[in-house]
């Protein structure tokens, strides 16, 4: 399967809110742009965190010294989801109804994103999903979206 299979390029004018890219999560967003899905991992026990956190189980001296951003599977299951029927923000008026889900990643953490490439009526809790990189080349960032897993 070609790498580009899980990439979608969107060149339309961007009318939605911009992502929050700051010092804490810059590596995560840099990874997305390279089509890598990174999680913050404890080198001692392997616990994964998202967003970035101090390991609950270990001292991390110096501060967060035992943790690193590492490439993860980009796979998980739908933990909870909703279907937005009202676009409270005008940037989403062409998107409704859209699915916004909590995804329980195979490594453990929960992350929220849209589940696309599926009729919202077909979405179920527990459904396996995988990462879909949505590139916005004009804006210079990639959004992590999810779609039903392809075996």
């Amino acid at each position: 399967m070609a790498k580009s299979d899980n990439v979608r390029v969107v060149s339309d004018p961007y009318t939605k809110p911009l992502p929050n890219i700051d010092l804490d999560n810059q590596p995560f967003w840099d990874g997305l742009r390279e089509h890598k899905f990174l999680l913050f991992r404890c080198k001692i026990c392997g616990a994964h965190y998202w967003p970035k956190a101090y390991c609950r189980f270990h001292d991390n001296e110096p501060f967060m010294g035992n943790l690193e951003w590492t490439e993860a599977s980009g796979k998980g299951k739908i933990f909870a989801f909703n279907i937005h029927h009202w676009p409270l923000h005008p940037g989403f008026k062409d998107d409704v109804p859209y699915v916004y889900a909590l995804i329980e990643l195979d490594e453990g953490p929960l992350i929220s994103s849209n589940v696309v490439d599926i009729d919202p009526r077909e979405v179920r809790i527990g459904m396996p999903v995988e990462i879909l990189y949505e590139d916005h080349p004009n804006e210079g960032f990639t959004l992590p979206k999810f779609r039903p897993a392809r075996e």
Partner: protein
Amino acid sequence: MTASRKYAIVGLGVVAGPQPQRTRRQVAAEAVRRAIADAGLKREDIDGAIELVRGAGAGERAAYADPFPRILALPINFFFTVERGGALAALGIAAAMSFLDRRIASHIALCGVVDDWTRAQENKAKGFRGMVHIEKEGAWGRPLGDLRAFSHHSWMASRHMAEYGTTSRQLGAIAVAARAWACKNPEAKMYGRPMTIEDHQNSPLVVEPYRLLDLCLISDGAVAFIMTTAERARDLKKPPVYVLGQGFGEIIRELWWEKKNYTSMAVKTAKEQAFREAGVELKDVKCAELYDCFTGEVLFQLEDYGWCGKGEGGPFVESGAIGPGGSIPVNTGGGLLSCYHLADLTGFAEAVRQLRGEAGERQIPGCDIAMSTGHGGELLAPGMCSIHSCTLLGR
């Protein structure tokens, strides 16, 4: 060494309903003026002031520019802001008790004010809906259509439905109960507008599984109250409402790690602390003012506090347990769903009125102990409404 019954709420001032012609600070000043008068006090008696702000944990800034103590010329020694999601009344009470205990102040005015309804009308004209003005730039998920409260709380409902088989109709029973109470409260936005379960089921899906009638109101208004010591309270105009106990909990402690924060709130420590301090039990609570930003939150709290078992909230509310005539009256003024939305100040104000016997047609007979909870303070994606507060009040 307990603080129980040592401090009291002695004055209450409420301004409810749309206030498009007045600024927030003028509405706040009016509510504080009413609270001072309600207590039978004079402005000169107020020597401390606390503004209560429904900010998210991520840190909205307070509106210090022109605070009510200046407008009302209160001779205060301190003024500051308590800010945290929907637990601002509870945190304000805790702060005020410390200042009273240390004799830094004798009578403290606390006030929370919102202009969300007016702001929402302005937002609508720009193509937005709801409370986008409180959405912070940069929070995770905004490019993905994350609309914060709507998006996160509907996940909770979906998760509860999946784990326990809860239905939309059962959630609707909570909205119907709140409306039945509101129809007994002339101050409620929905007074005179009764609602059936069919109305709920026929209301549009907004953020599925939530329908329009699962969502709280967007309001303008202010709630102010005056706190003093039990000794001073005895000589004032209105019957004192004593703080019996308080407790707090945070989802960021462990519930998030256990992934249980979508079907439960951080009730455990809050309940233990508050009931221990008050020296009472759950069965002693005559009315429960439970934070109801959405219908699901009421369900979670009924279960987490133990009025019913975990997962049994749906059948419990469907039985009519929380409405007028039910076994545990919940949100007796109509709550955030049908009265007005001033965070936990809505339920707090109602608890004070019930304990004073001022609740008119909706008065709970023999109401001597009331409970008011707070919830919210979205901290961090994904969807953590972390804080929970429990305040037990008594006469």
